[in-house]
C-alpha cells in the first residue's frame, strides 16, 4: 500500500511499533526506586466501616506506607469530584457503597509484597441492607445510600426531560395505533484489554508531579488534579502513553490514580499501581443500565407520529457519568431516531444503587446507544403490531434528504443525511427479498431464521462550547502545527488515541491541506507538556473536533506560506493560487508557471529572505476549534441469524453494515473502527453482562464470567458506505468511532426476535444467551440484570 498524498487507504503509522511489540504502555514505565501500590477493596456492597487496623501491614518488612481514608481526610482528599459534579470516595471513610470499593492503599517494594500486605489489614464492617435492584431504589424505606450528603432522604439523583409533553400526549390521545414496550439496556463494561493504572512521580526538589496514566483526556486530568489537590498546574505533567483500549472507561479519574499520587508524595518515590482484571471489571466505569419504557403512536397505514419514553437510569453509588454538564442523560434526545415525527417526549430519572459508579463509558456517544436501541426496538415492535415488514416501515418513515438540516422534536439540528439511499444499499447488499423468501421456507420446516434491521443517527463531536462543558471546561480542542525548514511538520493535538489511528489520519489531514506526504508529518499527543489544551478522545469527537482543528491550523499555515511565497515570487498574495499535484502543494502566480513548493516556502520562511511588513518568519500556527454544531453520522445495519429452538443458541450468520460518516480520511481505519464496534455489538446483544445478586455480589468479575466475543462469534462483516459530507465540518467528516457499537445491538436483537416470531415473542432483554432465548420461547423471560435463581 503506497502512501497517498492526502486521504485514502494507507497503513497505520502506529502499526510499525504495535506489531513488533514495541508499543509503550503505562505498565512499561519503570523508574529507578519505584514502589508498587495495591488497593484493598470492600467485600460488601453496603456496610459501615467500624474500624481499620493497619498495624500488621505496616509491620511487613517491605511495606513503605499504608494509606486509608483517614490519611486522605487529613489532606482533604478523602473525596473527589466526579465528572458529573457529584462526589466520590477516594478511600472510604464512613461507609462502603459498592462491592469492590477502595478502602486502603498499600505501598511496598514489590507487587507481591503489596498484595500480601492487603491480607494483613483488618477491617471491621457492619453490613447494611443494599439497594441492588434499581427498580426498588425509590421505594419507601429503601436504605439511603448517600447519607454523606446533607439532608438526603432518598436515592434519586435527578429528574430530567426533553421534548414537548403536552404535544406528545395529544398525538397519543388521537392515535389510531399505539404500542408500548419495557426494555432493559443492561449494565455492561468496556473491558479494555489494558486495565487502568498509573505511575506517579513527585519530585520533591522541583515540586513537579509527573503522572503516566492511560487517560483519554490528559488535559482534563491535569486541570482536575490542580483544582482538587491544590497543586500548581504548571508543575503537573500528565503523560498518556499507548493505551490498550479505552472505550470511554479511561475518561475519568479513578481513586487508584489519586492514591498513587499521594503514595509518591508520602514516600518520596515513584509509585506504580496497576489494577487487575477483576478490579477493572468491578470498580471502573460501567456503561448503560437503562431501564426503559418506550411508546409509539402511529397511523394504521404505518406513519409514525410520536414517541414517548420513560427511563430509570441506574448510576451506581456515585454519579460519575462523563457527559457535558447540562446533559444528565447525555444526548438521549436522539431517541426520536432517524424518523419524521410530529412530537416526542422523554423523562429520565437517575438513581443511586449499591453498584460501581460510572455511567456512559463504552463507546456510547453519551447515551446515544441507549436511545438508538430504544427507538430501533420500538420500530420492530410497531411493525409486529401492524403486521408490516420492518424494512418497509423504516423506509416509509425515514427523514428525506430534502429535510436537512432538520430540527428534531427535541431540538437538535441534524446536519445532513440521505437515509433512504443508505438503507436501500444495505438491503441490496443483503439481498433482502431473497432472505425473506428463505426465511419463509425455513419457517415452513420449523427452522428459525431471523433478519434484523437497525437504522441509526448519532450526534457526535461534542461540542459547541456555549452548550457543552465538562466540570466547566469547554469542549473545544486545540491544535498546533510546526513546519520545519525542510518542510517536515509536527502536529500537536489535545486528543489522545486509544487505537483510533490518529497518528495516521491526522497526518493525512495535514498532508491533504499542505500538499505534503503524511509520512512527513509527525503527530504528537498524550503529553500535557507537549500539546495544547483540549478535552480528549471519547464520544467520537476526535475527528469532528480535533480533526477540524487540524484542518484549520493547516489552513493557517498555508495562508502564512502564501505571504512568504508572495515575497519569494515578488507577487501580490492575492495573485497566488494554491495547487496540489503528485509532486505536492505549491503557491503559484495565477496564469504563469511560476510557483514555489511548500518545502521551498518553508525553507525561505526560516532564511534571510526579506519579508514584507507584518509578515513574521516561520510558518507555525495554532488554533482552537469550537464546533458550530455536532455532526450526525448514520447507518443502516442488517443482521441475519439462525436460532436452534432446542437449545436457544444464536448463530450470527451475516452482518451487513452501511455507514455514512461523511468524508472518509482513511477508509481502512474507518472499516477497522466499524469491525470493532460490530464485534462489540454482538457481544452486548448475545453475551456481555454484569449482573448482581441480592447482596450486591458482582457476578461478572472475570473474563470467565464476563464474556467478550471472539472471531468465532463474528461473521465476515459485509461493509458498505455512502458519503454525505457534514456541511459545517472543514473537511466534511463526521465521527465514526462509536457508530457500529451504537447501531449493531438493536440489529442483532431484532434479528433474534424476528426468528422467534412464530412463538409470538415480541421482546426479550439482552444479552440473548441460550438460556434467555429458550426462556423467551417458553414465555417466561429471564430478568437479565439480577442473579439467575
Amino acid at each position, binding site marked *: 500500500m503506497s502512501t497517498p498524498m492526502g486521504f485514502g487507504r494507507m497503513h497505520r503509522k502506529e502499526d510499525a511499533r504495535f506489531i513488533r511489540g514495541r508499543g509503550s504502555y503505562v505498565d512499561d514505565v519503570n523508574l529507578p526506586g519505584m514502589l508498587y501500590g495495591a488497593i484493598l477493596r470492600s467485600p460488601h456492597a453496603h456496610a459501615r466501616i467500624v474500624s481499620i487496623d493497619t498495624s500488621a501491614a505496616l509491620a511487613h518488612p517491605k511495606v513503605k506506607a499504608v494509606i486509608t481514608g483517614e490519611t486522605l481526610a487529613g489532606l482533604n482528599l478523602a473525596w473527589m469530584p466526579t465528572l458529573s459534579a457529584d462526589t466520590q470516595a477516594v478511600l472510604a471513610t464512613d461507609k462502603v457503597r459498592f462491592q469492590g470499593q477502595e478502602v486502603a492503599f498499600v505501598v511496598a517494594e514489590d507487587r507481591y509484597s503489596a498484595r500480601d500486605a492487603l491480607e494483613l489489614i483488618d477491617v471491621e464492617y457492619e453490613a447494611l441492607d443494599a439497594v441492588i435492584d434499581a427498580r426498588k431504589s425509590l421505594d419507601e424505606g429503601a436504605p439511603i445510600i448517600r447519607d454523606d450528603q446533607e439532608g438526603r432522604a432518598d436515592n434519586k439523583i435527578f429528574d430530567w426531560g426533553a421534548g414537548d409533553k403536552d404535544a406528545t400526549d395529544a398525538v397519543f390521545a388521537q392515535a389510531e395505533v399505539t404500542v408500548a414496550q419495557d426494555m432493559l439496556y443492561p449494565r455492561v463494561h468496556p473491558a479494555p484489554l489494558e486495565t487502568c493504572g498509573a505511575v506517579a512521580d513527585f519530585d520533591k526538589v522541583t515540586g513537579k508531579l509527573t503522572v503516566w496514566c492511560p487517560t483519554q483526556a490528559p488535559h482534563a486530568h491535569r486541570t482536575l488534579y490542580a483544582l482538587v489537590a491544590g497543586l500548581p498546574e504548571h508543575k503537573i505533567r500528565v503523560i498518556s502513553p499507548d493505551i490498550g483500549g479505552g472505550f470511554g472507561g479511561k475518561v475519568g479519574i479513578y481513586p487508584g490514580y489519586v492514591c498513587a499520587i499521594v503514595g509518591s508524595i508520602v514516600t518520596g518515590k515513584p509509585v506504580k499501581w496497576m489494577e487487575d482484571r477483576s478490579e477493572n471489571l468491578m470498580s471502573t466505569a460501567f456503561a448503560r443500565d437503562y431501564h426503559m419504557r418506550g411508546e409509539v403512536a402511529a397511523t394504521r397505514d404505518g406513519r409514525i407520529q410520536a414517541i414517548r419514553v420513560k427511563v430509570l437510569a441506574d448510576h451506581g453509588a456515585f454519579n460519575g457519568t462523563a457527559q457535558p454538564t447540562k446533559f444528565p442523560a447525555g444526548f438521549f434526545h436522539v431517541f426520536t431516531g432517524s424518523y419524521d415525527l410530529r412530537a416526542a417526549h422523554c423523562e429520565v430519572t437517575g438513581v443511586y444503587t449499591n453498584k460501581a459508579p460510572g455511567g456512559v463509558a463504552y463507546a456510547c456517544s453519551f447515551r446515544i446507544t441507549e436511545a438508538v436501541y430504544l427507538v430501533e426496538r420500538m420500530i420492530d415492535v410497531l411493525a409486529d403490531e401492524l403486521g408490516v415488514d420492518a424494512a418497509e416501515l423504516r423506509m416509509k418513515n425515514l427523514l428525506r434528504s430534502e429535510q436537512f438540516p432538520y430540527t428534531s422534536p427535541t431540538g437538535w439540528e441534524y446536519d445532513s443525511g440521505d437515509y433512504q439511499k443508505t438503507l436501500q444499499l444495505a438491503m441490496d447488499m443483503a439481498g433482502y427479498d431473497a432472505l425473506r423468501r428463505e426465511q419463509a421456507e425455513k419457517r415452513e420446516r420449523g427452522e428459525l431464521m431471523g433478519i434484523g434491521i437497525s437504522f441509526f443517527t448519532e450526534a457526535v463531536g461534542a461540542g459547541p462550547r456555549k452548550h457543552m462543558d465538562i466540570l466547566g471546561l469547554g469542549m473545544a480542542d486545540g491544535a498546533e502545527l510546526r513546519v520545519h525548514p525542510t518542510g517536515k511538520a509536527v502536529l500537536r493535538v489535545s486528543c489522545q488515541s486509544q487505537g483510533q489511528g490518529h497518528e495516521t489520519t491526522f497526518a493525512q489531514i495535514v498532508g491533504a491541506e499542505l500538499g505534503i506526504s503524511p509520512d512527513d508529518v509527525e503527530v504528537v499527543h498524550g503529553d500535557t507538556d507537549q500539546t495544547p489544551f483540549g478535552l480528549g478522545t471519547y464520544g467520537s469527537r476526535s475527528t469532528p473536533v480535533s480533526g477540524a482543528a487540524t484542518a484549520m491550523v493547516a489552513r493557517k499555515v498555508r495562508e502564512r506560506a502564501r505571504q512568504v511565497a508572495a515575497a519569494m515570487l515578488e507577487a501580490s498574495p492575492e495573485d497566488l493560487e494554491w495547487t496540489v499535484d503528485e509532486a505536492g502543494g505549491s503557491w503559484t502566480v495565477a496564469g504563469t508557471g511560476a510557483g514555489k513548493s511548500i518545502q521551498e516556502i518553508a525553507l525561505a520562511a526560516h532564511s534571510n529572505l526579506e519579508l514584507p511588513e507584518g509578515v513574521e518568519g516561520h510558518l507555525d500556527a495554532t488554533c482552537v476549534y469550537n464546533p458550530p454544531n455536532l455532526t450526525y453520522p448514520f447507518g443502516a445495519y442488517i443482521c441475519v441469524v439462525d436460532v436452534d429452538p432446542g*437449545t436457544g443458541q444464536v448463530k450470527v450468520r451475516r452482518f451487513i453494515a452501511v455507514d455514512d460518516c461523511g468524508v472518509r480520511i482513511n477508509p481502512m481505519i474507518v472499516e477497522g473502527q466499524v469491525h470493532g464496534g460490530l464485534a462489540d455489538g454482538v457481544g452486548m446483544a448475545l*453475551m456481555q*453482562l454484569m449482573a448482581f445478586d441480592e447482596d450486591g455480589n458482582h457476578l461478572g468479575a472475570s473474563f470467565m464470567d464476563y*464474556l467478550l*466475543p*471472539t472471531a*468465532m462469534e463474528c461473521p465476515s462483516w459485509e461493509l458498505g458506505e455512502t458519503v454525505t459530507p457534514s456541511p459545517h465540518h472543514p473537511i466534511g467528516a463526521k465521527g465514526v468511532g462509536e457508530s457500529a457499537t451504537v447501531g449493531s445491538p438493536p440489529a442483532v436483537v431484532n434479528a433474534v426476535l424476528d426468528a422467534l416470531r412464530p412463538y409470538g415473542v415480541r421482546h426479550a432483554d439482552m444479552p440473548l*444467551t441460550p438460556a434467555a432465548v429458550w426462556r423467551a420461547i417458553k414465555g417466561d423471560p*429471564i430478568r437479565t440484570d439480577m442473579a439467575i435463581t
Partner: protein
Amino acid sequence: MQVPASFEYERAESVPHALELLERYGEDARLVAGGHSLIPMMKLRLAQPDALIDINGLAELSHLGVDGDTLVIGALVRHAALLADEVVGTYFPIFHEAERVIADPVVRNRGTVGGSLCQADPSEDLSAAFAAVRAEAVILGPGGSRTVPIREFHVGPYETVVEPGEILTELRVPIRPGAGSAYEKVERRVGDWPVAAAGAYLRLDGGVIAEAGIGLTAVGAEHFTAPDAEAYLIGKAAEEAVLREAARIAAESCEPQADQRGPVDYKRHLAGELTYRALSRAAERSGS
C-alpha cells in the same frame, strides 16, 4: 496484575522423584501439570499451596496409544494431543468432539487430561466423556499402583480418590468394535465452560443396544453419568422414541444448579436435549 502468594517450586525428574517430592512437602504440596486450573486459582489466591511440583517434563506420563484392546492415555497428554490423534478419533469420536469445544487452543496446548480429571470441576467436559466410555484410572502411590473405575474416581465437586501423596498416571479405555460415540455441548461462547454437555456411547448387537454409556456434565449428574437411562436402553432398538425416553430419564436424574449460565429448568431441558442428540449420533456411528 493478579499475583499469587509465595511458594516453593520443584521440577520432578521422574515419576519416582515426583512421588518423593510429594512425600517431602506433604499435604500442602500440589502437582502442577498444564497449570491452567491451578495457576489461575493461585493468582486469585483461592489456592495457596506451599510447594508446586512440576511434572511437565515427565515423558513417562505423556504416552498415548493402543495396548491390545485398550486405548491408553497418559495423564500428561495435552488436550491438543488427544484432539490431534487419529486413532483416538477413529475409535472414540466423542473425545475429539469434546476436545474441540474445551477451552481454546492456548489452553488446549498446555492443559492435560490428568489435570482436567484431577481438578474435578463439576463442569469438566472430559469427566463426562470418560464416564460415557467407562474408562479406568490408574493411580500410583508410595505403595504401588491401583486401578479405579472412572465412575468411582470423583467423590464430589473438586474431590477425587487421588490421595495427597499419589499421582494419576494414565487412563485406560476399552475398545469395542462397532461402538459409536458422540459429544454435544452448549456454551455461551466459544471457549466457555459448558452450560450443559452430554456424551453418548452405544454398541449395537443384532439391531438392539447391547451397551450404552451416557456422560453428563455441568448438570449435577452423580458421577457424571445417568445409569437409569443407560439401563433403560439395553436390549432396545436405537429408534427415536427410545432415545428420547432415555434422554428424559437422564434429565430427570440430574440436579442442576442455577447460575449465570442458566436456570435449573433450562439446564435440565438441555441435559435431555443434548443426551438425545448425542445418543442419536452415537447410534448412527455404531455399526450393526
